[in-house]
């Protein structure tokens, strides 16, 4: 257990703090980093929905109908749209991380282009999949 003086959040602490989020002017690269973490967290919660759907499908027609009723409701569709967007945004962010791991795309202006490609790619893939979904319905 750390003693009080070594906790960064402790007002009594004499240690200097590094500047945090609220100090910086919002930048696209920063927003994409935050969005990567938020979409990751959203996908984490979304597994509950996926588990419900799979368990319902494995149970019987009545359970499956109940899950389908919720998922095709307005709220269900909004959640599924958010899930799809989170999935593709996080996927695009992951591809960006591969480039960084290879030591590329960290300089200006490449990093700005990559940040833009992340949100545009994530949104475009989401809309494409939903267009396909409605077309196949």
């Amino acid at each position, binding site marked *: *257990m*750390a003693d009080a003086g070594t*906790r*960064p*959040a402790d007002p009594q602490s004499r240690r200097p703090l590094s500047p945090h989020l609220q100090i910086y002017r919002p930048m696209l690269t920063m927003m994409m980093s935050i969005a990567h*973490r938020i979409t*990751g*967290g959203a*996908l*984490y919660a979304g*597994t*509950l929905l*996926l*588990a419900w759907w*799979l*368990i319902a*499908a*494995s149970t019987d*027609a009545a359970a*499956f*109908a109940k899950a389908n009723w919720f998922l095709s409701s307005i709220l269900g569709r909004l959640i599924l749209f958010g899930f*799809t967007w989170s*999935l593709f945004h996080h*996927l695009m962010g*992951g*591809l960006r*991380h*591969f480039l960084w*791991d290879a030591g590329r795309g960290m300089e200006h202006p490449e990093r700005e282009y990559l940040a833009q490609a992340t949100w545009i790619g994530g949104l475009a893939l989401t809309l494409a*999949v939903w267009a*396909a*979904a409605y077309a*196949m*319905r």
Partner: protein
Amino acid sequence: MNDGSSSMRTPLSKVRHLGSAHSGTQHAWQMRATSIALVPLTIGFVWLVLTLIGKDYNSVRAALGGPMASIVMLLFLLTGIWHMKLGMQTIIEDYVHGEHAKTAALLVNAFFCYGIGLACVYAVLRISFV
């Protein structure tokens, strides 16, 4: 690194692959490995779900229960849930500073991921075999 004991191990061999986190690069490496696998698996998962839209219960069960669909689904689930357990661990380590709270949060993360993973895998296998 000289602890004064009679160990024959060199200082370098004691720290090799460990680093300051005492688990070395394993976490970072597993994150990358699961990421790479998840690129094709996510495409396969989305494709699979798209082909199920608008189908009735029996058709969905038949489609999901096929070998290829089940295997893609199981790989996606296992790799994805492993990846998300690692990711949530990083988030917890970044934001939860108290030792007890951090340990509790890491335990809940592990329980959630193993629980949801087992539930999903069980459901897919039941669709395939029952």
